[in-house]
C-alpha cells in the first residue's frame, strides 16, 4: 500500500484534515507531516489577536497520522475500494512543551504499542521544523472494517 493510498482512505476533509504526507510507515510505526496554514479557522479565535495552534488540534493531527493512517496501513489486507474503516478515538493522554504558530510544519512520529481485538494503542510524538519536541503522549482507538 502506498502512502498516497493510505491518505485516500482517510475519512476527513478540509477544514479537518491534518495530514499532508506520510514519510515512512511499517507494521511497527509511522512518520508523517502537516503544515498549519495561517488561514485556518481556529486561529481567528485561539487566541484573540494572538494565533496559536490549539492543543486539541495538535492532538487531532497526531491521532490522524499516528492512529488512523497507521491503522489503515495495518488493516490494508482487508481494505477494498469504497469500504471505509470504522474508527473511534477512545483515549488519549498528552503532555505539551512548546507552542505551534501559524504556518509551522510539524512531524508526527508514532510507535505501535499494541493492536489487538480491534484496539490500536500508540505512543506518539510531535516535533516542530527545528526538530524540537512539541508534545507527546498516548492515543488509543477502536478500528475495524
Amino acid at each position, binding site marked *: 500500500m502506498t502512502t498516497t493510498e493510505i491518505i485516500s482512505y482517510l475519512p476527513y476533509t478540509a477544514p479537518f484534515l491534518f495530514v499532508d504526507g506520510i514519510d515512512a510507515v511499517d507494521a511497527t510505526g509511522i512518520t508523517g507531516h502537516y503544515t498549519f496554514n495561517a488561514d485556518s479557522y481556529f486561529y481567528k479565535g485561539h487566541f484573540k489577536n494572538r494565533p496559536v495552534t490549539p492543543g486539541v488540534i495538535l492532538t487531532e493531527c497526531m491521532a490522524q497520522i499516528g492512529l488512523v493512517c497507521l491503522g489503515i496501513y495495518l488493516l490494508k489486507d482487508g481494505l477494498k475500494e469504497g469500504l471505509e474503516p470504522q474508527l473511534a478515538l*477512545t*483515549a488519549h493522554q498528552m503532555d505539551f512543551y512548546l507552542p505551534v504558530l501559524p504556518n509551522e510544519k510539524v512531524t508526527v512520529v508514532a510507535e505501535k504499542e499494541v493492536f*489487538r*481485538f480491534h*484496539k490500536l494503542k500508540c505512543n506518539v510524538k510531535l516535533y516542530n521544523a527545528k526538530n524540537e519536541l512539541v508534545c507527546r503522549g498516548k492515543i*488509543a482507538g*477502536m478500528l475495524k472494517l
Partner: protein
Amino acid sequence: MIKAELIEKLKAIITPYVQDEVAFKNLTEDTDFIKDLKINSANLVDVILDIEDEFDIRLDNQDMEQMLTVKSAMDIVTAKLNG
C-alpha cells in the same frame, strides 16, 4: 488459586474501567462487564490485556467473546492456568 483471591485480582483489574460504581460495589460472579458495570468495548480490551499481564496467559478472540461476566472470566483464567 482460590476463588476469593481470583475475584479480588479481577476486581483490581477492572476498577479503572468501571462506569457503574453501585453495580461494582454489589459485584457477584454473575455480574456482566458490559451490561452491569457499563465497561465499554474499548476498555474491555484493556481488561483482557491487563488479565494477560496479571496471570501471564494469552487470550484469543474466542476468549474475548466469551469473557462477558465475572464467572466466565474466572473460568477462562482458571482453565488457562491449569492448561
